[in-house]
């Protein structure tokens, strides 16, 4: 289950460990297989607050496979699946 972070530092939201705060560095839906038309997932994520600069932290993990995840995004809480969290590039905060 553990995914080693890529060497170029391209860390994704689904790779964060629980409780590790981070900021959103970008949204890139090309990494995700979806049924949606191109650009739609990105727009939905922005509408739900997953936009560059947002603070995120994983609060809860579902079952089984620690999926889906509940994340705190600034002042609200969002549930999403790891498969789609892959679209969110993050920078961990110290």
């Amino acid at each position, binding site marked *: 289950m553990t995914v080693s972070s890529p060497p170029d530092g391209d860390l994704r939201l689904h790779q964060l460990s629980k409780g590790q705060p981070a900021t959103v560095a970008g949204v890139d839906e090309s990494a*995700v297989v*979806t049924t949606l038309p191109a650009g739609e997932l*990105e*727009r*939905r994520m922005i509408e739900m607050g997953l*936009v560059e600069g947002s603070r995120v932290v994983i609060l*809860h993990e579902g079952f*089984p496979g620690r999926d889906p995840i509940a994340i705190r995004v600034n002042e609200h*809480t969002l549930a999403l699946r790891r498969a789609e969290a892959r679209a969110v590039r993050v920078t961990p905060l110290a």
Partner: protein
Amino acid sequence: MSVQASAVEPPRIALVGNPNCGKTALFNALTGSRQKVANYPGVTVERKTGHAVGPLGRRVQVIDLPGTYSLRARSPDEEVTRDVVLGRFAHEEGPDALVCVADATNLRLNLRLVVEMKRLGRPIILALNMMDAADKRGCRIDVAALSAMLGVPVVPTVAIRSGGVAGLLDEIERTVASVASSAEPCRWSEPSSRELRAYHQEVEAILARCVTDAGLPPLATQRVDTVLLHPVFGLFFLFAVLFLMFQAVFAWAAAPMELIDGAIGGLKDWVGTVLPDGALRSLLTDGIIAGVGSVVIFLPQILVLFFFILVLEATGYLARAAFLLDRLMGGVGLHGRAFIPLLSSFACAVPGVMAARTIENRADRLATIMIAPLMTCSARLPVYTLLIAAFVPDEPVLGGMVGLPGLVMFALYAAGILSALSVAFVLKRTVFRGAREPLLMELPAYRLPNPRDIALGLFERAKVFLARAGTTIFALMIVMWFLASFPGAPDGATEPAIHYSVAGMIGHALEPLLAPIGFPWQIAVALVPGIAAREVAVGVLGTIYALSGSGEALHASLAGVLAGSWSLPTARSLLAWYVFAPQCLATLSVVRRETNGWFWPAVMFAYMIALAYGAAFVAFRIASHLL
């Protein structure tokens, strides 16, 4: 002035906001009980309207719109919101002003919608709802600065406190008075991701200036969620809640049901004393009172069920349930969001099928719609309750913790759920193949439900149920009574009169078809109108056995009569039949509307009747062998 005011249409305002922003509570606070629920023409999204009266006595029509994060409309539900605010509905003009409702504890996403809505060119008032919660969390908002930066009036509100919306009513009255001068052309078009980012930056700039202290996060919610979203405790709690709910449906509803039963009996006796023996008395007592009464008696159970659903929804727990079940339901290809339509289907499949509108993806939505009627709706309760009362002894089981009747009921519900999951599994691997719709769902902070909002919700459900009992079911009962009473028995008849009636003939004609699953002709008669409305089957059985029985049987309870007339395998077979029961016409017609054609309702009817017949056959054969 009042004469003039009533001559012209009152100004119309629409409430728009994110889901969970307390919009419905605000709507209730503005309109009190002066509200009306109808459907939008051509679609099944509920259109809730009401009237508010401003401090100067001006009447304003208020429209409550489905919650949304964006005007881009991803689901049919959100399309209604978009079309109403854009004035695109053919049958009604756009609202004169918009009240954007924002949760003050969670401004960011709400303000993004406000910024987008400003492009509509209509006057906007921003209601900062739940200001009390924001204060408590130490959140400081500079209302004057917010108003200045947004360029719209901003009014703090506390929808759940009396007088908490006085300022908003004031502002609404002021805004609608000057509507004509403030209208601007609509500049809204579907935003691209770049525009969405620009909106967000605008919101960030506003927040940086106007929110001097963001306050504490909802720590209590996070602590509770550590338990309630826990893989083990969370699921255990969820199943405990569902079990409690079904036990309560029986335990809490028992006393009021006895009261209603007594009242119906009293009414029958009273009609019996004032009317002479004859066709009219029989129509009233055997047809209408027995038939409608046997349905109305289930009002308490339906209200208990809706009470739980409304409370779970108001607290914010339903979204957690969807979170907990997303992966498990994903095993059969369902979206976590399908949980909410499916839970509603326990009350009635019609709102359940409609609630599936929040699922954006068509294949996901169709799969959910197709299995929604397998959830045990409250209209099946009358049938289950009757058969359990007649055939299941009231013994304590599991060390006296629950009664056997409750356990059988739970098993029947479980059978419905398991079959729904199996059907979904098959559907998602055959006709509805493809990836699941992404899950992007807000988990709102927990809140105590407000008694007034729960009460209004229950009142609404009771009204819908009684209206149905008073119209559809009432009419069906009259028709059934005629079918069961005419033609009368010939001279020298040996069987009860109903044997020779049209209903008897229909029943006898269907009997060979239903004999393999152990149904006598009386059930065959009851099943025909039961397709129109499931709970009617009980009423029809009441009428049939009332008309076919002797005077003695008339006074015994229907459960007692059935216990004496049917074999145990027949009772089991009917229970199995009703787990899959061919659904009511209302469900089929709502599926037709939601899917735009007769294809899916036809498939649904065919697969459910096949399952019902198969299950009843197996139940009857096994029971006949064992007993």
